[in-house]
């Protein structure tokens, strides 16, 4: 165990201050679950996070840090990391103690400040970027520290890491022709654990919001989904498709402009004009078109389904 730089809450907070990481810290009674933490800081500016500590079959470790409302499907995550099905599980308590060196309730990106956690991968919820601030425990569960994503990134860079934001709820097909999209985030080496582990028994780390679907779907006072969610259905979100098409259109147009024979200053001006035109003029029409498309396809499917039901009951 590298005792040399075992951090405490105080040393972490000094580290943050030294590196210009703006944060707001609140003390409260010790909390062991996300719901309790939310009770104490839910009214303040910032969102509570849930943090999972995972291990794969080759003993590589991951901290997965998300909004409490984000669903993390471990099977899907495992596929996207290129680890096949069921490749990641909740890490046993021994790994927590020997590598992260924090109590089970304090898993957070801040825990990676310890030297021993050097080879633990960190996956952050892209949803954090939309929040004003996010709360994490700074190595101690009677404190919650809120940071903006810019400052979180600053902290991570200060400990020699590149922040990686992942859309956990995106449905990504992984197959022969589609490589796992998160494979680059898998650590190069297994974490060096100083205490021997007893196989990969799945100890329930009760304090951190467990990785079961129910807990993942239930931040403090949320009601359970009334209508059951169908698994594996591809969601079509017109807003994100629109953003993606606009980005592609702008990129294509700008590439075309840059490969033309205009002078460079003219190229820049034209590129900017085209960017603005596509985003402002094209966007409303394209959005309307995409929604029409979605509604039409849904309607056709619905009709088809009701017809086929009618036919099968007529037989």
């Amino acid at each position, binding site marked *: 165990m590298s005792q040399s730089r075992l951090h405490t809450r105080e040393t972490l907070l000094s580290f943050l201050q030294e590196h210009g990481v703006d944060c707001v810290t609140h003390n409260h009674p010790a909390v062991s679950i996300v719901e309790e933490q939310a009770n104490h800081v839910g009214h303040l500016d910032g969102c509570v996070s849930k943090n999972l500590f995972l291990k794969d079959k080759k003993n590589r470790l991951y901290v997965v840090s998300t909004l409490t409302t984000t669903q993390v499907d471990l099977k899907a995550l495992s596929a996207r990391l290129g680890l096949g099905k069921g490749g990641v599980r909740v890490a046993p308590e021994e790994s927590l103690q020997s590598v992260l060196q924090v109590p089970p309730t304090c898993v957070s990106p801040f825990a990676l400040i310890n030297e021993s956690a050097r080879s633990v991968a960190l996956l952050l919820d892209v949803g954090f970027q939309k929040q004003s601030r996010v709360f994490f425990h700074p190595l101690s569960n009677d404190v919650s520290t809120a940071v903006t994503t810019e400052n979180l990134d600053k902290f991570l860079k200060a400990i020699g890491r590149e922040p990686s934001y992942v859309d956990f709820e995106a449905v990504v097909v992984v197959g022969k022709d589609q490589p796992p999209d998160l494979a680059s985030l898998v650590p190069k080496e297994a974490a060096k654990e100083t205490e021997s582990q007893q196989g990969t028994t799945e100890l329930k780390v009760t304090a951190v919001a467990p990785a079961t679907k129910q807990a993942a779907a239930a*931040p*403090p006072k949320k*009601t359970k989904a009334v209508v059951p969610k169908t698994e594996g259905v591809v*969601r079509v979100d017109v807003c994100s498709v629109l953003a993606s098409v606009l980005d592609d259109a702008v990129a294509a147009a700008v590439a075309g402009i840059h490969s033309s024979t205009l002078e460079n200053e003219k190229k820049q001006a034209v590129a900017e004009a085209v960017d603005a035109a596509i985003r402002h003029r094209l966007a409303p029409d394209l959005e309307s078109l995409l929604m029409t498309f*979605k509604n039409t396809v849904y*309607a056709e499917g*619905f009709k088809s389904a009701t017809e086929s039901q009618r036919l099968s009951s007529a037989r």
Partner: protein
Amino acid sequence: MPEGEVVASPTRDDGGGMEEEAGASQVVTPWEVGSKDGGKINYDKLIVDFGCTKMDADTVSRIERLTGRPAHPFLRRNVFFAHRDFDKILDSYEKGEKFYLYTGRGPSSESLHLGHLVPFMFTKYLQDAFKVPLVIQLTDDEKFMWKDLKLDEARRLARENAKDIIACGFDVSRTFIFSDFEYVGGEFYRNMVRIAKCVTLNQVRGIFGFVGEDHIGKVMFPPIQAAPSFPTSFPHLFGDANQSKNIRCLIPCAIDQDPYFRMTRDAAPRLGFHKPALIESSFFPALQGESGKMSASDPNSAIYVSDNPKQIKDKINKSFSGGRDTAEEQRKFGANIEVDIAVKYLGFFLDDDKELARIKEEYRTGKLLTGEVKKILIDVLVAMVERHRRARAAVTEEMIDVFMAPRPLPHMFG
């Protein structure tokens, strides 16, 4: 909305309420909107009279933070300027609780004008920004009761209007459109009767101005418009009382509907429901100016979604202007942008805040002429109406059937 003599009385809920004073300087009810001296509506006074809350800049910033996108121009420019309990909706949303949107239309005519589109455009923004479901009530029964319409014609108009509504860009996987004549029954009807039991004849006389000669269909109607405020009215969407007890309702509407929903909010707690929250808009100006009234009988009072570019151009060119009579005077003295209709319409439909500010300043100081401002507006409106027309043309009977089919919406939240 029902029409009749305007008599309003203070209601029990939420304080405020219209007082029937001889000296009331402005009248705002579901049937009549106007200032006695023909001037502008004083919205601040209205908020005080009704007892609702003004929308402030902090709340707008909070909405931007929670939804992760810029606020709709209607919020930034104070079109949706008042609310009841909207902050409770935001608090509950932040905690991960759910709410749904409820809005409606009385299908009295074939064509919608831009003023009709405003609440639907804003509702679409709310649906996209908060990722929540929406129910839209087509009150074909109300129109049949109040207007000289055959019943089947009312039902037909409901479907026609549904096309324009769908063309506004609502997401079928999150939206349920229903007509009263098709949907009323089951748990919806049971809620109607529960609501009806909470409201006395005297109250509806006060709120809606019913008199002895009115047919009883009119008296029957208010609970029908109240029922969609309660989630159990839609068991296929939200389940039973236990399953839906933490689901709130937000109603975007024009502020003249406020007296109406006060009745609903009054009944809600007695029935064990959350009071529906409201977010309210000011009135869309008629082309002839503030003192004019938009009316179906005068096609020049409004721009319709069925107008062609030439009609739009002619109507805008004839619209009430705050500019001077001659170009020289305009350049010298500038325009009165407070009363200019073209500027007001740009305030609704020109998204770019900087561009709008530039136009207003240059028009006010005389740098821009009236014709130039009107041309900018015409271009904006023609593009908007054309987009709507195209979307409407793509709405099939099948699509309407699906929007109106009571079906579960498994992905309606998030």
